[in-house]
């Protein structure tokens, strides 16, 4: 009998399950990458994995450390230059789903990956935007994979690097964005989805053994909870085994 699933493993598996129907997914580094590779392995062998290094249709057998590891280029259907990646592939909305991480998220799914503290004198200098702003604007939909806690789920971002729904439900249309924006936020506690009207992130699914109270406690704003909250199906043995196999090198 293998060890029970950790919260991080449940998060990764819950994110992977969202890719059952997708044709293509754009992947950031870290847990989003693990989830997408797992989805291709388990549920959707035709899933096209796209990394901002220019590798389209990569087929990694392990989770790469960087988005530009050699295995991604060697197994890709096409390898393109960075201007082509953003101008021909991401910008026109050719990619179904984007899997992104961030340091902070707010109730409208806006993301910060730039600074903690004031921009001119940051307390913590984070890596910065990378591809996220245009990826989130243009991919068909966005799934945010982020740890749940009061440091990451904040009332107000220190810096808005990437627009989720902006400040109002029609902001994306006003800004001319082509994609639908965040459709899910997957954390180590739960899954949140935007309210269809207000676009405010709403708790819709709890991971096994997590309470609504625990999610409220870990959220830096007054959390909206759906009338009926689903329960994430516990990871199957096959899912856990595949995930652990990917992570072990």
């Amino acid at each position, binding site marked *: 009998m293998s060890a029970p699933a950790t919260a991080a493993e449940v998060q990764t598996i819950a994110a992977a399950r969202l890719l059952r129907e997708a044709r293509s997914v754009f992947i950031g*580094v*870290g847990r989003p990458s693990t989830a997408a590779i797992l989805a291709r392995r388990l549920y959707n062998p035709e899933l096209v994995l796209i990394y*901002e*290094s*220019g*590798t389209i249709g990569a087929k990694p057998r392990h989770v*790469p*450390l*960087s*988005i*530009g*590891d*050699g295995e*991604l*280029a*060697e197994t890709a259907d*096409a*390898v*393109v*230059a*960075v*201007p082509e*990646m*953003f*101008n021909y592939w*991401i*910008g026109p909305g050719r990619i179904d789903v984007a899997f992104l991480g961030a340091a902070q998220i707010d109730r409208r799914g806006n993301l910060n990956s*730039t600074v903690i503290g004031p*921009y001119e004198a*940051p*307390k*913590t*200098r*984070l*890596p*910065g*935007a*990378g*591809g*996220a*702003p*245009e990826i989130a*604007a*243009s991919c068909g939909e966005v799934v945010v994979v982020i740890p749940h806690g009061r440091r990451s789920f904040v009332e107000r971002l220190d*810096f*808005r*690097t*990437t*627009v989720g729904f*902006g400040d109002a439900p029609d*902001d994306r249309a006003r*800004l*001319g*964005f*082509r994609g639908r924006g965040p459709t899910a936020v997957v954390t180590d506690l739960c899954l949140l989805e935007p309210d269809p009207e207000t676009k405010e992130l709403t708790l819709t699914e709890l991971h096994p053994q997590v309470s609504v109270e625990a999610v409220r406690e870990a959220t830096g704003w007054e959390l909206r909870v759906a009338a009926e909250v689903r329960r994430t199906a516990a990871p199957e043995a096959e899912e856990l085994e595949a995930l652990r196999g990917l992570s072990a090198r």
Partner: protein
Amino acid sequence: MSAPKSLSEAIADLVRDGDTVALEGFTHLIPFAAGHELIRQRRRDLTLVRMTPDLLYDQMIGMGCARRLVFSYGGNPGVGSLHRFRDAIENGWPHPIEVEEHSHAGMANRFAAAASGLPFAVLRGYRGTDLMRHTRVATIECPFTGEELTAVPALDLDVAVVHAQEADRDGNVQLWGIPGVQKEAVLGARRSLVTVERLVDRLEPRPGGVIIPGWVLDAVAVAPSGAHPSYSLGITERDNDFYKAWDAIARDRDAFLAWMEEHVIAGGGDR
């Protein structure tokens, strides 16, 4: 392009204090050997341009080469922070640096505009973000449709330095694997240097191969393993263990300086 030069001679000829320099390579083919030569020759007040500063600019910033940094993602991919980059911005060590940051789409288009000889490039981007207020971009209206778009200024590069797998004896260069923005950097800069893993008699066509003709380059220098700890697809592998180990080395100022002294200052130079 004349005959291949030594790396130290090429750097001495092409890069001056105060220059705006792009050492490019997107995760792959990062020109570490050339950057280390810049450190050894003690270039100062450089404006360092790179989409992903990576360990190379972490080292150059920590060794005091940079006055200004232009970038779009300053992390150690898959590992965490670039501690020398953070220390310079958060604490001004070894001296304060100016920062101009963009998104990847913005930077890629700035390189493409430079290569095209145009003053700016246009994209759908930046809108609704705080980046708009903190960097050099402008909103423009499409003259045909009236759509509001974002303009990014072309990069103004004195020198581009890239690494490739091969050059022939006439200085024509071929690289393959992840091509990043290397071609755009070379064509967008006033001067350019390519370091290569090896010289060959003839460039053999490779799938996805990018050829840069020797006549648009100023210098080619041979630098075997010159991308380490990044890699040259088909010849060397990315040293992921080193990328992880760098976190501890760079976290501490003294450990960083000792490492640089041992491995770059004393241990480096022409082979």
